[in-house]
């Protein structure tokens, strides 16, 4: 309903425009635009992880009882586990749609640095799962009685952590392309443990009024190494399907 004639053109045009000389950033923009339009057409892509996140958060007070002291001490872990699971929920859709209808083939044929394709897909995944979770996390923090001082560290750690999860998720999705969604979750989860540990540590440290900047720097370093390494490996994993 949002899209009329001009938007539909964007969906079909980029493949023609790839033949012309354009910079890497142009390509990034084109893919991002295309995928965002596709994602916004089907609202379930960004609503589902968000609702899942909030439901999981709600389950903890229901299961553990509503004591304020208990919930606020458990809040960092609860929010982080829910965020990890929610960002894994949409992992399978990163490449599967494009793989099924053949646009992935077109990308690989026409697009010189396929690194850009993967990077754009990771960004899209973060925009439709990480960003909504980031916004909803402050709501979750209120429900779980997390003190107001811990909001900023929680948001910062989730920002870095969900980005890393999107990177890992893209690799998992590429490796399990065409297989069950649960497989990609099993592949990714053990590798997400350091993110979970450091992310919860950031929030717990801020609860205890301790300096948490070391963990944030470590998470930033993981992200900085992860972007080139994981994107390249994801390209390699995707190419497995085109031998």
């Amino acid at each position, binding site marked *: 309903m949002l899209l009329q004639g001009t938007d539909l053109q964007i969906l079909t045009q980029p493949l023609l425009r790839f033949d012309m000389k354009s910079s890497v950033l142009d390509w990034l923009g084109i893919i991002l635009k295309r995928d965002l339009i596709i994602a916004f057409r089907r609202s379930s892509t960004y609503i589902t992880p968000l609702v899942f996140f909030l439901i999981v958060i709600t389950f903890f007070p229901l299961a553990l009882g509503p004591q304020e002291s208990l919930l606020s001490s458990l809040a960092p872990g609860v929010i982080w586990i829910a965020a990890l699971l929610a960002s894994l929920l949409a992992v399978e859709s990163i490449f599967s749609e494009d793989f099924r209808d053949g646009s992935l083939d077109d990308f690989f044929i026409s697009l010189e640095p396929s690194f850009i394709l993967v990077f754009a897909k990771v960004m899209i995944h973060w925009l439709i799962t990480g960003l909504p979770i980031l916004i909803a996390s402050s709501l979750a923090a209120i429900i779980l009685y997390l003190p107001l001082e811990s909001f900023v560290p929680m948001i910062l750690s989730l920002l870095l952590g969900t980005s890393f999860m999107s990177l*890992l998720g893209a*690799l998992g999705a590429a*490796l*399990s392309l065409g*297989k*069950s969604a649960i*497989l990609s979750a*099993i*592949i990714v*989860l*053990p*590798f997400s*443990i*350091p993110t979970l*540990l*450091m992310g919860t*540590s950031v929030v*717990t*440290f801020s609860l205890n009024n301790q300096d948490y900047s070391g*963990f944030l720097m*470590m998470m930033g370093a*993981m992200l900085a*190494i992860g972007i080139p*390494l*994981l994107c390249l*490996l994801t390209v*390699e*994993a995707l190419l*497995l399907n085109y*031998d």
Partner: protein
Amino acid sequence: MGSPPLFYRWSSKIMPWLGILAIIFLSIGLFWGLLIAPTDYKQGDVYRILYVHVPSAILGQSIFMFMAACGLINVVWRAKISGMMLKSAAPIGMSFTLIALVTGSVWGKPTWGTWWVWDARLTSTLILFFIYAALIGLYSSIDDKTKADRAVSILSIVGLAIIPVIKKSVDWWQTLHQPSTFTLTSSPSMSPDMYQPLLLCVIGFYLIFAFTLTLNLRNEVIDRERSKNWVKQIFVN
């Protein structure tokens, strides 16, 4: 050992020696460790679990490093044999990690009073076990063997990059939640007559790994080359 038939012939000569040496080292090391080595003055005789626990923990980690090296070679140079090595090593590494976990928890019962303690080492071994499970799960999901090799190689490279981070973060996490009062092995204070049998055990474990790896690798080679002539010449008289 570039060509499969050459590897097959060469390995059939070396394999019995690996097996014999492994049995010699293991029996001497374990006999010495379990029956002759002196009793630890603090822990008593339970410490003797160390002679199984420590070598299998070492093996669990170094097999992963071996697999990641194979994975790197497989991704960069597309060497098929390294992919087969990766596949043959995975179940052995997982077995040794399982042994390390089980013996660690059995050791915990008499010394700490519980079957499980969230000790930094036990925790990172458990995570290593899950990573092995992820690798093997990925293997079993892809039918095409060369493709499965490359997929698992890619994942093992990520594992290589992330394992130091896991160790570091588990250490931090542990100091955050509970001061580390427990240490299983106090290596610097270990006396030579406790240390020497341990060394023999570690060598024996490496040898038994090499033996099992060769067994698995030979199966893998004849499985993939089953329609080739040289395989038929060996098995069909």
